[in-house]
């Protein structure tokens, strides 16, 4: 047995789960799919006196299309996201990103909420929900609140979710009209964390001008982030006039905390980052131009 000893709680409702979190404070941690938390426990990088297993909380699973948005329960597995026709139709970027996460064996356990709440800067889902303008639903004993994704990621493995709160769902607004979506990343082996990656969500008008564009970066900082300077430069631009390489350069130039480690220097990651942004931009813009309204 490698993790330190803990007490195990298996609530069957989200309300029960947050009351356990409130009762035990920082000594308790929610356990979702366990594909990041359990390795950290096994390596004793972290330890908790109480684990609150959300596996039995049925209300946290499922996909629900509502007026103008798609609501996905936090405990919906990555495998379920990958196979969901509703998600493929309403949020194709999420479907395309999912096969890049780990391996099919880890996607059978790993969840969308767990991945977003863990907030690894190199993970795919945080960057995807960032570019899709998602809202994160969080509950505590005090009630429910909705956090815009722009305010959700606060630093390395850190989010706006407090100790007594629980991420319960992700709501993604439907992007309509002439839209295009792409995610590109480079990893040394399939399923590894990417050296660098980029997600693009784009909407263009009938004259092929950029109406709304979001560029998300992964693996290029201490938190998932948007390349806002490159986004501003693209606002209103004719898609045909955009130089994809220049978009890539603009996206990585302002970055200040690019990681540097055994897998790649900061300089190398910047170069890979610029290239994956350019590739994702090309694919998203080609897709958007192909849509006729």
């Amino acid at each position: 047995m490698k993790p330190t000893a803990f007490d195990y709680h298996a609530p069957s409702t989200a309300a029960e789960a947050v009351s356990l979190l409130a009762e035990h404070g920082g000594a308790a941690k929610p356990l979702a799919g366990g594909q990041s938390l359990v390795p950290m426990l096994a390596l004793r990088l972290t330890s908790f006196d109480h684990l609150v297993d959300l596996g039995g909380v049925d209300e946290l699973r499922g996909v629900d299309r509502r007026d103008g948005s798609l609501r996905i329960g936090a405990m919906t597995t990555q495998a379920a996201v990958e196979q969901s026709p509703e998600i493929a139709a309403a949020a194709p970027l999420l479907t395309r990103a999912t096969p890049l996460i780990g391996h099919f064996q880890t996607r059978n356990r790993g969840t969308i909420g767990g991945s977003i709440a863990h907030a690894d800067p190199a993970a795919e889902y945080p960057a995807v929900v960032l570019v899709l303008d998602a809202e994160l639903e969080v509950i505590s004993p005090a009630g429910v609140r909705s956090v815009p994704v722009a305010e959700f990621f606060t630093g390395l493995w850190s989010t706006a979710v407090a100790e007594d709160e629980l991420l319960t769902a992700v709501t993604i607004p439907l992007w309509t009209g002439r839209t295009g979506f792409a995610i590109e990343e480079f990893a040394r082996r399939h399923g590894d964390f990417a050296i660098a990656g980029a997600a693009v969500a784009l909407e263009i008008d009938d004259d092929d001008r950029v109406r709304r564009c979001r560029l998300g970066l992964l693996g290029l900082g201490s938190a998932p982030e948007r390349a806002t300077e490159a986004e501003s430069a693209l606002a209103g631009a004719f898609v045909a006039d955009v130089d994809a390489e220049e978009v890539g350069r603009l996206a990585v130039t302002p970055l200040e905390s690019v990681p540097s480690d055994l897998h790649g220097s900061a300089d190398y990651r910047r170069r890979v980052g610029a290239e994956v942004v350019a590739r994702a931009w090309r694919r998203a813009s080609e897709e958007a131009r192909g849509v006729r309204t």
Partner: protein
Amino acid sequence: MSERDIEMTVNGTAHRSTVEPRLTLADFLRERCGLTGTHLGCEHGVCGACTVLLDGDAVRSCLVFAVQAAGRQVTTVEGLSAPDGGLSPVQEAFRDHHGLQCGFCTPGFVVSVTAFLREHPDPTDAQIREGLSGNLCRCTGYQGIIAAVRAAAATD
């Protein structure tokens, strides 16, 4: 820290035990059930040697606590062979195509490939490579394993 009484079905047989919550499913299978076919390599979810089927889905048993598998169905590599002990089609194909050398990673590969072929009965080479990417082998160089998966797909 309080122990728990749990019961789960492993390869069709009920197993009951009192466990600490931190006991992983992998350790439960090896130490409590005596099923040492499930191998532990890295013990933090990277190598895939401990892959088992949990309610039919391939999972890493080092990343599931035994308490989380209470009441559920687990299939280990021992449960894949025929009742008379004969090899499964995937195991036959690994033997025939040099899909193993030292054998340490083999149970994880066999369980993963069994689950993979159920979802992809006629896989492309790219799908096979992606499907195998969650299991590490340090001996074979993978080519024999890829050939074994192709062969197993053809025999099913």
